[in-house]
C-alpha cells in the first residue's frame, strides 16, 4: 500500500452545502472517494491510499487537473483505491464534486 497526500490552495469554495458524500466502491480497477466539507474554503486536501505503488506522479497530475477544474475549496477528499486507471479516478472525482454541489 502507498499513501499519498496532496494539498492545494483554491480560489473559491466548493459549490453547494452538502457536508459529506461518498462515491465508488473499492474493487479491482475501482476506488471510493469520500468528500468532507471540513477545511477552510481556500484550501483542499486529497489523501490517497492505493494498492498499486509507483504512480505518484500520475496521481499528482490527476489531482492537480481536478483541483484546477473543480475548485474544491474546503473539501477534504479521501480515496481508497483498488488500482483504478487514471481516467476512472478523474471520473470519480468529478462525480464526487457534483454530489457535493447539492444543498445540505
Amino acid at each position: 500500500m502507498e499513501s499519498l497526500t496532496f494539498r492545494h490552495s483554491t480560489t473559491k469554495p466548493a459549490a453547494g452545502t452538502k457536508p459529506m458524500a461518498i462515491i465508488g466502491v473499492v474493487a479491482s480497477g475501482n476506488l471510493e472517494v469520500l468528500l468532507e466539507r471540513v477545511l477552510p474554503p481556500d484550501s483542499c486536501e486529497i489523501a490517497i491510499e492505493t494498492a498499486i505503488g509507483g504512480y505518484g506522479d500520475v496521481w499528482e497530475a490527476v489531482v492537480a487537473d481536478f483541483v484546477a477544474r473543480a475548485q474544491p475549496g474546503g473539501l477534504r477528499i479521501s480515496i481508497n483505491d483498488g488500482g483504478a486507471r487514471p481516467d476512472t479516478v478523474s471520473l470519480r472525482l468529478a462525480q464526487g464534486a457534483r454530489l457535493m454541489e447539492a444543498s445540505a
Partner: protein
Amino acid sequence: MTDWRSEKTARDARIAAGRAHAQGKVVQATSVVDLLEAVLKPGDRVCLEGDNQKQADCLARGLAACDPSKIHDLHMVQSGIVLPEHLDVFETGVAKRLDYSYSGPQGGRIAKMLYGGQIELGAVHTYLELFARYFVDLTPNVALIAGVSADRDGNLYTGPNTEDTPTVVEATAFKNGVVIAQVNEIVEKVPRVDIPGDRIDFVIEADKPFYVEPLFTRDPAAMTETQILIAMMAIKGIYAEYGVRRLNHGIGFGTAAIELLLPTYAEKLGLKGQIATHWALNPHPTLIPAIESGWVKQVHCFGSEVGMDRYIRERSDVFFTGADGSLRSNRAFCQTAGLYACDMFIGATLQIDLAGHSSTVTQNRVAGFGGAPNMGSDPHGRRHPSAAWMKAGHEAEIVGDRALMRGRKLVVQLVETFGDKLVPTFVEKLDALELAKKSGLELAPVMIYGDDVTHIVTEEGIANLLLCRNADEREQAIRGVAGYTEVGRGRDRAMVQALRERGVIRRPEDLGIEPLDADRSLLAAKSIKDLVHWSGGLYEPPARFRNW
C-alpha cells in the same frame, strides 16, 4: 498454334481425376484427402474459405493431412487465417506462400512463422482489396468453400453466413478453377440457392457442422462507466452534431455501448430518426434494443452472428433475407456499402500515434486488417452528397473554390486512453513500424492512416482533426485527449487550451455531459439475458454467454 483453352483442358483433367473419388459430385467425408490430392497440383493458388466467421474446417483438416510429397508449395489466398490448420499447412510444406487479410485468433502464431521464414508473405490486405485481387492477379485454381446444405447437383445454401462465398466462387468458377464445397448435409432440395450448382464441382458432406465463431457478441455486463462516458460524448458530439444516419460500427465494447445508449440516452436527447437509421453492420446482439425501439430502418450484413438467426427471420423489415426467410449476408457487398454509402465509420484501435495513424499490431501479434480500413477511409470515388458528409467536408476545407468543395467521410477512433494492464493507447511511434522493419515488410501494417481520421474520442474529450490546420495543431489536439498517458502529459497546455476555445477539442463539460450520468443504469440492456428479453425470446445466445 496457340492453345487458347489450356486452362479449360487442365480443369477438365482435374475434374476427371476428382471424379474417381466421387459419386457424381458427391464425395464422402472419408475421401477428402484423396479428392484433394487428385484435384490439386503443386504450386496451385488455393482459396481455403476461412471467413471472418464461417470456416471450411473439414476441408482445412483434409488439406493439412495431404501428403506434402504430392501436394506442396501451394499459394494460399484467403481472407481469414483462423484455424490452426490454416497455418499447419505451412509447417508441413503443403503450402508456401500466403496472401490474406485477417488473422485475429492466430495473430501470435502467424507472427512467429513470419519471423521464422516459414511463410512467404505476399501481403496483408483489406477484405475488398483481396477480393479485388481474386479477379486480377490472385485468381484461385481451386476454391475450398463451406455451406449449410447442398443438393446432389451442387446447388448450395450457404445459410445466414454467406460472407465471402459468392466472391470466391465467382472468381474461381468463371476462370477455369475447381470449386469444392463442404456442407453440413446433402438434401433433396436446398432452402434457397445461394450458389447455383453449375459453379460447384464437388460436394462433401462434412463429418461435423462447420465451425462458426461468435465474434460480435459483447456482453453488456462487462461494459464500464468509462465506455459509457465515451459513448455519450460520441452520440452528442458526433452523431448528433453531424446528423449521421448511415454508418458502420466496429466490434468493440465502445461502439456496443453506443448501440445500448440509443434507446436511452440518445432517445432522451430527441435524436430518434435523426441518427443511426441505416447500417452496414453484422447483426450485433447489442443492436437489438435499438431495433426493438424503432431506431433502425435497415441493416446490411457482412456475415451473421451465432444465435441471431431466429431474431433476424422475424425482423425482415430490418435485415436482408432470402425467400426462405433466413439472413443473406455478403461481405464484398457490405464492405462496398460501408466504404461508399456510409457517412461514418467508428471503431476502436490499439495504438494511435501523434499524426493519428493507428494500428492493431503489437510486438508479437499480427492480427491483419479485415475490413476496418475499407470502412475507415475517405472514398475519393464518392459522388453523392449527404448532410453529414458535406459538413465534414466544409470543416476540412479552408482554401480553394467552395464550388469545387466535396464532402468527407467521418472516420472516428473511439478509444480509452489506456488499454488492458495500463498499456497506453497513445504512443510516439507505432509498434507496426518496428514489426515492418523486423520482418522486412515494404509497407508498414497501418490500420487507418492519420489523414483519413477525422475525430478521436476518448474519456477526456473529442479531438476534431478536421479543424486542425497544420501538423502541430493535429499533434496537440491528439495529445489534448490522450489523458494521463506519456503522450497526453506531454501536451502544450496553452495550445490545448486554445484548441479547446476553438472547439477543436471538446470536453464532456463543453458538451453538457454530466459525469454522474456515466452509469450502467443508462444501458438499455445490462446483461445478455436482457438482450434475450428485448428480443422477445428470439435471440438465442451461445452457451458461454448464458447463465441460465
